[in-house]
């Protein structure tokens, strides 16, 4: 029931459903309830979309790395990109209303925050941008 596995892929949308395939494989293995499973799968994809799109500017020469880690109480995901990061402290203070249909985008961070138990950002010069998602599970 304890495990970790990491995936690395070029910054192109077409890899997102492979991330999803792996994530669903893990979720199936640890037999999460359907709601928790959906919330994790959706959030992982949002984090990876941001990493490849905003972080790596969809540059296929640069990789996104995803690290999945789980034990019987906790499912955690770290998503790394090679971008310059962004002012997440400021952004988190004032997340746009996701039901406002005048905005086509801007729902990813809101969704992750709602669906996971913890969402955190960290930027460092050697690791680049790192987003950490965590969810309490009962495995």
């Amino acid at each position, binding site marked *: 029931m304890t495990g970790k596995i990491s995936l690395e892929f070029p910054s192109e949308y077409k890899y*997102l*459903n492979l991330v999803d395939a792996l994530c669903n494989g893990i979720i199936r293995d640890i037999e999460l309830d*359907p709601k928790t499973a959906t919330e994790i799968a959706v959030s992982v994809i949002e984090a990876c*979309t941001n990493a490849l799109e905003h972080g790596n500017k969809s540059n296929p020469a640069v990789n996104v790395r995803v690290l999945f880690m789980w034990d019987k109480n906790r499912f955690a995901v770290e998503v790394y990109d090679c971008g310059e990061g962004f002012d997440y402290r400021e952004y988190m203070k004032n997340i746009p209303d*996701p039901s406002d249909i005048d905005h086509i*985008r801007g729902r990813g961070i809101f969704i992750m925050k709602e669906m996971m138990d913890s969402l955190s950002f960290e930027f460092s010069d050697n690791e680049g941008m790192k987003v950490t998602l965590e969810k309490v599970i009962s495995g």
Partner: protein
Amino acid sequence: MKYKIREKEGVVLIDLSGKLMGGSDAELFKDCIYDLLEKGRKKIIVNLGKVTWINSAGVGILITGYTTMRKKEGDLKLLNVSEKIKSILYVTKLNLIFDCYEDEEDAIESYS
């Protein structure tokens, strides 16, 4: 993303299939919507039954379609919304915006 267009009782059904995410999908869907508007079609149902994969950028694509239609007195409703898509709509409260149907006949009837 791929799509096919059908018409039934004056209602246009867009059968989407594959992945619905950021990137080129947004342009493709926008073009499709403008094309329908040009032909005077304003009663739209988007069938998501064969969408295997979606993210919030994909939902944004549906919002573009919805707002474009509404501005022209049209409407855009959703059919066969998977649990995953529903979870995104509910958490963002977009379920209050989009009419969702499980049955094609019901969706078509809602326009009459």
